[in-house]
Structures are given as C-alpha cells and as structure tokens.
C-alpha cells in the first residue's frame, strides 16, 4: 500500500546553500530507492507534484535529501519542522537488496548520493561490506554518513582540490580491479549512469541504476515518464520510470542520445 495524505515535518537540516534534508513519519514499509510524490505548493503552482527519493529509513521515520533546482524544491526547502506537507508513497520498485551477499559497491553522483546513502545504511545493517565512490561538482554532501557505513570511501570533486580530482568513473576501473563485488548500485546524472554502464558492460558486469525522469502522476497512470528498455514487441519497450522503475539493471537500459 501507499500512503496518501498530509504529515508533519519532524526535522529539517540545511547541508549547504542548495541542499537540505527533511524527515517525516510514514506508517508504511519503505525500501531504499523508492520515492514519494510531494505536493510542493500551497497556492496551486507549481501544479505537478515533485518526486523525491528517500535518503534514510529508520523505523517509520523517512528522510529526504533534496537539492533546490526550481520553485517546487524551493517551496520544500522553506518548510520548517512542525509544518505540514502532502505526499504520496512509497512509490516505485526501489533497489533489490537481496542480490548482494558479501561485498557491494555504491556509486553516487551529485544529489544522486541521497538514495545511495539510504541504501548504504540499509546494506550495512545487513552486515554487508559497503564500498562507496561518490562524486560532486564542488563540495560533497552527506560525507559523514558515507564515512560511517563505508569500508572504503572515495570522494571525488571536479572543483574542490581537497578531494580526488575529476569524475567517479575515472576511479571506478581501479576500484573494480581491487575488489570483488557481488552487486553494484548507482545513482546520479544520466551521463554518469551511461559511463558507468559502458564501463561495466566492457567488464561483463552490470549495476542496479536508480534513474529519473520528469513525472506527472508518479503512480503509473499518465505515461509521461518512460525508460526505454531492450527487447520487447517493438524491438525495444517503453516502461514507466515511476512504476516498473526507477531502478533498472544497466544491461537492460537503452540510453538515447
């Protein structure tokens, strides 16, 4: 079942000038990689809800880590603890945590580290060894949380020289050479997911990719958020990002130009 209603915000936390977290209590079982569809207005505009992935699950307390990218996320950023927010969820398939037994690799880019952080915490509590490689344009977010659950943590930045320079994919090859992983998970910008997919393809491996697309209903009715997959009756098939996804295996996704 999915919750659909209004809840009080329990906590908020500002990470930097554009990233923040908020927590709410939801009376439903939530999996890492699932998302909620937030009403991000009290005036009717913006019209459509904003799909936001969970970044932390502790009993019934669900945390969302959000980057301000427009009016909807700015509205959410302005909410304070005690304020009410309307949301629907959990939605989507989420990550499959059953495929990893011993050691797993997490790859995150930008605000894509948010759902990866929730996943890492969940895997660690299952006694899985978790290595992480996370990349940012400038300063990292959620670094402390990643330090806590990661056995090996690689932090990469394009602009901040305190960290390893460049993109996560530049360090991936070496990390994959050094350790044996029984599952790989990734979330980040499409270019990163594509580069990760290409690299894994060349090594005969695959990852669980948490993807995104602009959505309207978030529950599988409107068919505006699609992911193109290999095979199917048309030589490919369009599936719903919000319903069949947002997690897809890297070897089934067709990345368009």
């Amino acid at each position, binding site marked *: 079942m999915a919750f659909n209603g209004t809840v009080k915000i329990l906590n908020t936390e500002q990470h930097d000038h554009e990233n923040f977290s908020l927590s709410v209590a939801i009376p439903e079982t939530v999996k890492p990689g699932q998302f909620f569809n937030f009403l991000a207005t009290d005036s009717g505009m*913006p019209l459509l809800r904003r799909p936001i992935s969970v970044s932390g699950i502790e009993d019934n307390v669900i945390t969302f880590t959000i980057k301000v990218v427009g009016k909807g996320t700015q509205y959410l950023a302005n909410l304070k603890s005690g304020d009410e927010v309307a949301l629907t969820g959990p939605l989507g398939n989420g990550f499959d945590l059953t495929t990893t037994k011993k050691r797993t690799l997490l790859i995150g880019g930008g605000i894509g580290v948010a759902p990866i952080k929730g996943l890492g915490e969940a895997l660690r509590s299952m006694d899985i060894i978790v290595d992480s490689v996370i990349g940012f344009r400038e300063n990292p977010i959620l670094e402390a949380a990643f330090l806590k659950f990661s056995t090996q943590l690689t932090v990469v930045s394009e602009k901040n020289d305190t960290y390893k320079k460049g993109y996560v994919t530049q360090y991936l090859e070496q990390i994959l050479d050094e350790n044996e992983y029984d599952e790989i998970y990734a979330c980040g910008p499409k270019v990163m997911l594509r580069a990760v997919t290409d690299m894994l393809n060349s090594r005969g491996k695959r990852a669980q990719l948490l993807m995104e697309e602009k*959505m309207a*209903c978030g529950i599988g009715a*409107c*068919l505006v958020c*699609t992911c193109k997959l290999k095979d199917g009756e048309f030589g490919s098939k369009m599936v719903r990002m919000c319903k069949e996804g947002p997690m897809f295996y890297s070897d089934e996704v067709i990345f368009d130009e």
Partner: protein
Amino acid sequence: MNNLDLKVDLNGLILDNPVTVASGTFGFGREFEPYLDLNEIGAISVKGLTLEPRQGNEGVRIVETPMGMINSVGLQNPGVHHFIEHEIPYLRQFNTKIIANINGNTTQEYVRMAEILNSEDVDSIELNISCPNVKNGGLAFGTNPKVVEEVVKAVRNATDKHLIVKLTPNVTDIKEIAKIVEANGANCISLINTVTGMAIDIYQRKPILKRKSGGLSGPAVKPIAIKLVHDVYQAVSIPILGMGGIMTGEDAVEFMLAGADAIAIGTGNFVNPTAVIDVKKGIEKYLEYMEIKSVSKLKGYLNTVE
C-alpha cells in the same frame, strides 16, 4: 441532506454520479485502486485505444507550464484486443461505467474498432478525433467538418453502442463541428481535448518536445473549456461531458452551469490521486448550500437576470 440526486442521463448512458475521469489520465483504473474506491466514479474513459499496440513517442513527453502541462505521450497503449481480454474483466468488478476511447489513422480503423467493441461489454464508445500527439488521424480528423461527418457517420453505422464524440478546442467554429456530430447520430459530446501548445528550451534553442508541440491541459485551459462547453451547449441538444482543468467541486459546477451534464477529471488526477472523491464531495456541498436537490438541474442553469 442525504436525498441528493446525483444521477445523470447522457442520452442513454446513465451515470450514478456526474464525476468521470478523462481518457489518458486514469490508465485502466488499476493504478488508482490503492487510493480510492473505483465504485465512486461515474464512468472511466480508458486510456486511448488503437487497433494494434502502440509504443508511444520517443524522448521527453512532458513539459510543466504555468498551471498546466504539455504532454506528448503519443497514444501508448496495449491495443484494443488486450483491453478486451484483460482490462474489461478488471473494470467490470466495479460499479462504474466503462467508456472505450478509440483512435485511428483512417476512418476504416475507427470503424473496425467500433465493430470489434460492438459485441464487447463496454457501456460507451468515445470517438477521439482530437489527439494532437499522433502523426496521422487524431486532430486532423477533428478539425475538418467534412471528415468529422464522414467518420462519425461511419462509426455510427458500425455500432449500436452509446457513442460519445470527443472534440478538439483547436478549431475556428466548434458549434459547426458539434452540430455535424449531433446530426450524424452521436449520443453525447465530450470536450475539450487538449489545446495544442509548445515550449522551447531557450539555452539549447530547441523545442523541448521532439514533435515540437503537444497537448496542453490543466487549470490553464479551464476558461477556454468553459467557453467552448457553453458554445456547444447553445448549438446542440445532445448531452455534454465537460472537461478541462477541473481540480475542485467548484470547477465541476462551473462546467455544469456552462452547459455540461457531467464532467471528467483529467490532469487533476495526477496532482491529487483522490481528486474524483474530492470533486464529488465539492459538488454535493454546493448542491446543499444552494438547496438544489438534483445535480441535473445545474446544466446551463445560469442566472439570466440582468
């Protein structure tokens, strides 16, 4: 007041209440079952059907606009045979009317679909001659009076089912089209389909949608829809199923006062998965407040005192 009469008669299609859902915004109902009781819906117009399955359009399919959205889905659907085999039995579990929304590339395709559905368990056929998101057919059918006449006549001859014709707002004179639809045997008119719209990414200097334009829906189109419903109300005597940006009970009442017998919620379902229930409650509240017992009284019930 428990004695409100919410029944409406759309010229042979009797709905328990006037709140229906618009084609393409409610799938085949399944996605909404976790959120609301489908028995509460007057009728469900299912996702637009074609003879064969369709994959839909490539690329970005949505642009959010001020109080609206432009979609370019392109009639992605599993085809009429899948609908008959899998979706009708599902929908029949509920006490709601089933409207099969049909789309074709040619008059022959529309006719073929009407023939196929004629012997199936649907309560009505909605002839969609107004989809802006497909290359052939669709909108091209709905804007040309001669073609409208041809396709409505042909489909009417192909089926005994209750027949709704869905009109596009993208015409110069909607009254002329409505009259043709009525004269050729349609039982009911639904309107409006989406308004054609376009949006540009100013940094890439490219249209956001691959097909350049798509269909605008949501509260942004409501005043257009109210005006066109009123125009059609003045032009024909068959019932009207009004839609376009309905979010609340007040919106629904506005459509009925303009001349609609029943209404459909479209984009509103995306924003609020229980919109049907909320709109229905809002209508009831209005009827109680205005001390009007029967919702059918609202049709065209404008105060004409100057």
